[in-house]
C-alpha cells in the first residue's frame, strides 16, 4: 500500500474503532439510575 492510503486507512479505522468501542462499553457499563424506569 502507498503511504497516503495507509495513513488514511489507519487514521479512519482508529477513529471509528475508538468511538464504536468507547460508546458501546459505556452502554454496557452504565448502570440504570433511580427513576430511569419512570414514564
Amino acid at each position, binding site marked *: 500500500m502507498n503511504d497516503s492510503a495507509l495513513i488514511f486507512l489507519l487514521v479512519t479505522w482508529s477513529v471509528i474503532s475508538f468511538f464504536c468501542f468507547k*460508546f458501546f462499553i459505556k452502554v454496557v457499563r452504565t448502570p440504570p439510575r433511580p427513576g430511569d424506569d419512570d414514564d
Partner: protein
Amino acid sequence: MAVKEGWGSRVGLVLAMAGNAVGLGNFLRFPAQAAQYGGGAFLIPYFVSFLLMGIPLLWVEWAIGRHGGLLGHHSTPGSIQALGKPRWFKYLGVFGLFTNLTVAAFYCYLESWALAYVWYSVSGAFSGQSPAEVASFFDHYTDIQVNGTGMNFPIPAIGFFLATLGLNVWILSRGLSKGVEIASKIGMPLLIAFGVILAIRSLTLDAGEQGATYSAMDGLNFLWTPKYDSLKDPKVWLAAAGQIFFTLSVGMGSIHCYASYVKRKQDIALNAASAGWMNEFVEVILGGSIVVPISAAYLGLAWVQDPGNVGLMMGFKTMPTLFNNWGWLAPVAGCMWFGLLFFAGITSSLAMGQPVMAFMQDEFKQSRNRSALTFGFWTFLLALPCILFFSAGAFNEFDWWAGSVALVIFALGESLIFAYAFGIDRGWEEITRGADIVVPRFFRFVIKYVTPLFLLLVFLGTLVKPLGGDFIAAFQRLGRGESWSFDGESIIGSIAHVGVVDTTWWNGEELTHLFYIDATRILLTATFLALAFMVWKAFRKNGRSAEVSS
C-alpha cells in the same frame, strides 16, 4: 388485546438499533460507492455528512420517538403529530409507515436470496461452477429474463421468500424483548464475527495464493488512496451524503418506533451514538475489507473500477465464484458471507415491521399476533410485483421511490418540524434528558441550521440531478443559455421518463417496459393514499389530533 411492549435491556436496544442500520448496503453499496467516487477521498465527505447530518438526525429521530412514545404514539403519524398543532403533521408521518411497508416488501425478497444462498453454499451447489455458471444460477433462481418485460415466476425464490417473511412475522409476533431483541443479540455478534473472519481472509490474500492473480492489498490501496480532486465535485458530496442517509436507516420511521419504547428519563444520546458508530464500524472497516479486496485479487482493479460491476448483484453473482478458489473453505466462506448478509437483512426488516405493527396496535387495537400477520400479509402483497415483475423494473421502482426519495422527503420534513415547530430549545432538552454523555452544544446549532440545510441540498440534488450527475457541466451549460438536462435518476427526470425510448404502454404485441414502471408507481401512490386514509380514519376515531404535547 393490545400488549404493552418494552425493551428487556439497554444492550438489546442498542444492538437492535444497530441491526436496523446495518443492512446489505453496508457490504455491497458502500464499497461500490467508495470505489466509484474517489476511493479514500470519498471518506471525507462521507464523514462530514456523518457528523453534520447522520449523527444529528439519529438524535432527532430518537428524541421524536421517545417523546411520541410517552404520549402513546409508537409510529410516526402520531409521533410527528405530537411535535405540534398543525393537523397535517400526521400526514408527513405517513411516510414512516409507507417506507417501512414498501421497503420491507422488496427487502425481504433480497433477504430471502441471502438465506437461499446460505443453503446453496452449504449444499455445495456452487462447487466447481464456472463464473458464467454461477451468474447464470442467479438468473435462473430469480427467473430473470434479461431482455424481456414478461412475468418472472421463480418457484424456489418464492419458497425462500415465504420462509423469510414467515420468520420475520414469527419473530415480530414474539414482541420486542422476546423477539426482536433476541434476534439482534444473536444476529449482530454473528454478523460481526463472520465479517471479521472474511475480512481477515480477504486481506491476507496474496498474488499466486489460492488462485489469486493479484494481491488483495491492491484493492485496499485503491479504496483508500485519497483522490483529492474528487472533493471539488458536488456529485461526490451528494453520493456520500446519500450513503450516510441510507446506511443509518434515517428517514424511515423505524428509529422513532424503537425509541418510542424508551422511558422518559432513560438515555437516548449515548444509545444513538453507540448504534451509529457501530454501523460505521461494520460499514467502513468490515464492509470495505471484503468485496473490493477479494474482487481486486481475483478480477483485477479494472474490473473493480467499472461502476457496473461492484454492487448488489455482485454479492450474489460473483462472490460464490471467488470463494470457489478457497477449496474446502469455499462452502464455509459462502455460508458466512450469505449468513452475514442474511443477518444484516433480517435485523433491518424486523425494524421495518415493528412500526407498522405499532400503528395497528395503537390505532386499531390489534393484538401483537394479529398486527404481525397484518404486516406479513401487506408485505406479501406488495412483494408480489417485485418478485413477479422483477425484470420489468418493479423492484427498482420500489427501491427508488420508497427506498430513496421517500426517505429524503420525510427526513427533511421531520428535521424542520423538530427544529422550528417543536422548537430547538425543547428539542435540545429532549435529546439531552437523561443523557449518559455530554452532547456538545455545537450540535444544537447543527440540528437547527446545518442538518436541515444538508437535507435540503440532498433533496434538491435528487430532485434535479443533471445528466450523469455532473452538476458543474450542467451549470456551465445553463450559463451558456442551454437548458438543464435532467438525469433519468433524478426525481423530475424519473417522473418525465427521461431516457425512455418507447413512451407507449402497448407496442402492438405486448405491454412495454413503461407500462410496468407506471403500474408500479400507481401501486405505490395507491399504497401511500391508503395509509394516509387509515391515518385520517384512526385519528378521527381516536381524537388523536388534539393530543399534542404542551
